[in-house]
């Protein structure tokens, strides 16, 4: 086993793990949260964009590490919760799961494909909205409605935004 070359000793996908500067890791989620908090005040039609979710998916896909995805999702979700008026943990739990599954998916597939990104963003948005609705009903007892068609449409829109957004965020990767 010791004769195996080093480039074959570790999984090939580990070599494509993207790294970011700390300022980007902190700044991008903060900007995403800020976008969701601030921009819909003036552009109400942009309220459908779930920027923190897209950033969570992106970082989880790029890090290819479920624990990192969990951490990203939890931090971004809790930050989003803390700026909302409902108890802390709702977005945190949902985004934790999104981060975990996104990172798990990235371990199986190459996440640099635009089509995969589109599909994943669509899927995770729908999952996020659905799971949030489940949690809100189950844990908080809130009788909020869930409209699948509208959610699907919004998922498409978010996916459409996610592809160029991820492309822009790719520029912030640290090249070794």
């Amino acid at each position: 086993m010791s004769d195996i070359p080093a480039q074959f000793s570790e999984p090939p996908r580990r070599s494509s793990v993207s790294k970011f500067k700390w300022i980007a890791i902190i700044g991008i989620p903060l900007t995403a949260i800020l976008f969701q908090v601030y921009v819909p005040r003036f552009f109400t039609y942009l309220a459908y964009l779930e920027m923190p979710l897209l950033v969570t998916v992106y970082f989880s896909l790029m890090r290819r590490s479920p624990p990192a995805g969990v951490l990203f999702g939890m931090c971004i979700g809790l930050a989003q919760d803390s700026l909302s008026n409902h108890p802390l943990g709702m977005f945190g739990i949902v985004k934790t799961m999104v981060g975990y599954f996104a990172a798990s998916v990235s371990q199986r597939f190459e996440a640099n494909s635009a089509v995969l990104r589109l599909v994943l963003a669509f899927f995770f948005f729908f999952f996020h909205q659905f799971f949030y609705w489940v949690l809100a009903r189950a844990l908080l007892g809130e009788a909020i409605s869930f409209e699948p068609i509208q959610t699907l449409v919004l998922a498409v829109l978010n996916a459409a935004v996610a592809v160029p957004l991820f492309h822009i965020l790719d520029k912030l990767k640290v090249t070794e």
Partner: protein
Amino acid sequence: MDLILNRYRNLTALVAAILVQLVLLAYQVKSNQEVRLIRVWSVSAVTPLARLLESGRSSTVSFFKDYFVLLDVREQNKRLQADLNRIQLENQYLRSELDTSERGRALSVFQEQSRMKTVAARIIGNSPGSNGRVVLIDRGTGSGIQPGMAVITPDGIVGKIVSSYPTASNLLLITDPSFAAGVISQKNRVHGTLKGTGNSSLMVDYVQNEQTVEVGEWFYTAGDDRIFPKGLPAGTVTASGPGRTVKEIFLSPSGLQHGLEDVLVILEGDHKPIPELPVPNQSVHLQPLPPADGDPADGLSATRSSSGAQTDLDREVQHTRRIGEDQKHVFGERGRGAPDFNKIPDNKIPDNRVPDPGARPQAPQASPPSANQPRP
């Protein structure tokens, strides 16, 4: 255990994270209390950025708004400036017209009220080489103006004609040093000679030091110079004091106080007595003449009415004449007596009274034949 945790490291991390958050959630729901610390952190992290964003946004918006507003303001300013210039010109023109109208009206009123025969003239220029003490008026010999005639305004004397031409005349102003006119003071009846000083003031010469002249006292023309009729205001005393030989008295000319554009040239003077106090030229408000009966117009229109009835007496005369005409009576003829004044003329409404449309027509009264009526 360690093997299990290492084998299911990812899942363990997920479960741990979810459990922590579930506990957090449960704590909040059960205790109905917030986890304030996390919210404070998040808000503290987001607020400066939000403030920065808001500041940038408002600055940008205000910049563009101001920019576009200023663009509009610039155009608006140009338009307003043009409007202002035009309105100022119109205002000047209207003021000029109003002044002219008021002066003309004042002159007209003065002409009507005065028994003097005057002709109105307008200053059309200064005579060259005379330092502005001689001016040119637009009336000349064609209007009956001759040298030596007095020129006045309703406020006082202005000067005298020194030369006249067919269409214009030279007017020597009272401020010219060569001008002289006999004057008398209103209060103490002090006689003197009014002279120009070359500037805006006048002086009264040949008044003895023993005579009393008070500051503010009015001087009127005395009429002894045979140019100015007696009783026209000349000016008020601004300074009075004893001189070396005669008293030094300075006047402010009343005729030049409101500018000099329209004047009256006295063709035939009329001497008036020196008015008693109070001063004659203080402004007195005169109500317009009362309107004629049944005529809602003002007194001026009543004055201008074609009937010529200005007073109740005039109207009574007209009424009497109509009765006479209706009865074919000739006033003044001997032996015809007087008409029947109780008989109202058939087709004429006396005193412009409006007949009542609802009133029944009265049958003609059978009046007894008057002794004064002519018998057939």
